[in-house]
């Protein structure tokens, strides 16, 4: 029987998709369906959470010169 599932469609590149799947692997309440290599269906209430989480993960990959300075007095 045909169904219509409410959610948010996410379009992103493969690496970000992998990150979102990883975020989901810890909580299991984000991703509803994995559609294809660049699309995911996620819980529409979790969009902001995913964005914040992505930002946190990505900023780990960036060198922030200010962090260094704060360590050295």
């Amino acid at each position: 029987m045909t169904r219509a599932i409410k959610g948010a469609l996410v379009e992103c590149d493969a690496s970000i998709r992998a990150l979102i799947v990883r975020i989901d692997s810890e909580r299991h309440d984000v991703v509803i369906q994995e559609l294809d290599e660049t699309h995911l269906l996620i819980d529409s209430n979790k969009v902001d959470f995913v964005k914040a989480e992505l930002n946190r993960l990505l900023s780990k990959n960036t060198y922030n010169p200010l962090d260094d300075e704060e360590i050295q007095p």
Partner: protein
Amino acid sequence: MDAIADKTFKTDANSSTSHNYDSPSLLTVIIDTNPVIWEQLEPTLSFKAMLESLTVSINSHLALNNANEVAVIANHYEGAQFLYPCHVSREDEENQQVNFVKTDMYRQFRIIDDSFLSQAFKLFKDDTPPTTQPKNFLSASLSLALAYINKKQSHLKSRILIMNVTPDTHLQYIPIMNSIFAAEKNHIPIDVAQLSPHYNSTFLQQASDATHGVYLQIKTHTALIQYMMTVFFIDLSIRDSVIIPGIKEIDFRAACYVTGDIVDVGFVCSVCLCILSDVSLVGKERRCPVCDVQFDVNVLRKLADRKFAALIGSGANGESGAVKKRKLINGQSNGTGTTATSATASPMPL
């Protein structure tokens, strides 16, 4: 990712192709004011008519952008001098009764036009016509122009426009070539309007060729303004996009360093590369007149003989002398230091 990334970087690519934004430019005009030659030209083109066309084209240059600037230099028979910018003493300003342009003209144009026209007027007013053959100070004018441009170069791109009437004969070869190379190095195009219909200028052809400028001999003087607004109006901002009119055959001949004659066949010193029109010019000392290096007597004799032979040969064939230059080579091979080996027959590119 690619699809998204492309968007941002593509817009960037588009905008940087339009990098040739409107940067203001400086137009430096060198006017030939040799009165003798202008008198000869009078029937077809008067000095006044030329000034009129020039004024309009200077205004048009200023109209392009209001940060544009001009400088006008007179190549006079007594020396080069600035017509604009020029310090006018208070007294002169008050004494000046003639208004050269209408007072309701756009101020920016009026100030410049008035100043340079009144200076040009003054130049001729208190002049007694020259009694001796007038000298050509083109090299001095070019140096003045280059010095002025150098001062302005930090914020303005520049080009030079030469309004020439005088023939090459009285030109100083070396200073002119030096100015040309200086202009080339600083990316300053030299445009040349050869107003005399009777002769072309060898050196100025080379000047515009080396600096990617325009050289054009204007034969129909009634259309001078149209020439000024098209061929000589290619501003630096559009130099990259416009096809610059050129001449097919450029006269690349050089002048003898000693006699100043333009030579077809010449001799080049292997040390300082100076050009001599005749072997005999090295004199009895057999020294280069410019760098004073000593040449080998045998080579000189051989070259003199060959030249003689070439002249006879060409006379017999009815052709002009072969355009080849012999090179005096000051060889160091056998230790004496002054023995020269015989020259190769390949011409030196000039």
